[in-house]
């Protein structure tokens, strides 16, 4: 049953990533683009985890953890730049 469910879940997450890319390209303001990048990061973590279950590797969690960490730091840096005009004061 898991073998049948994982392609469906991968398809749904891929549609979600496409919608995020649409918002990233269209977004009227720069905050929309930051939000789209943040959501893209979260969806890509789920994609990596599902691909890991599909391929039976069990070693890609470092990549997922790294994406989570770097995405959070990037989001905070961009919003900090918008708020203060500087990242590190």
């Amino acid at each position, binding site marked *: 049953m898991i073998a049948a469910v994982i392609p469906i879940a991968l398809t749904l997450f891929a549609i979600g990533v496409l919608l995020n890319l649409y918002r990233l390209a269209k977004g009227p303001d720069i905050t929309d683009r930051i939000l789209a990048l943040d959501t893209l990061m979260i969806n890509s973590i789920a994609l990596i985890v599902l691909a890991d279950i599909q391929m039976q590797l069990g070693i890609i969690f470092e990549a997922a953890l790294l994406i*989570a960490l770097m995405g959070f730091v990037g989001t905070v840096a961009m919003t900090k730049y918008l708020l203060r005009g500087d990242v590190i004061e």
Partner: protein
Amino acid sequence: MTTTEIPFLLELVIAFFLLIGALVALLGSIGLARLPDFYTRLHAPTKASTLGVGCTLLGSLLYFSFINEGISVQEGLITLFLFVTAPVSAHMMAKAALHRRVRCVRRTRNVPWEGDES
């Protein structure tokens, strides 16, 4: 598919978690693409996407805990990290949008910068 056989009930639970997680995350992405202004768009993915990825990681945690004969800590770590950082980043994005006075829909009540146009 696997070397060790997973019991049917556990397989059902894992499939349920993966499917519900994917559906909820897709809902968040649809909300991000379709809602009218930034503040409503901020609402959709920060809740739905986090819950969806949390469900997916929970299913993955159950799966790999059974396959590898031991609790796999990495998924729990990623889930904890996401659940801690998602409200922080959403709050900072909302602060940045209020600072930049991003346009909101006309029906919004109590807009902070409405009175000081003159």
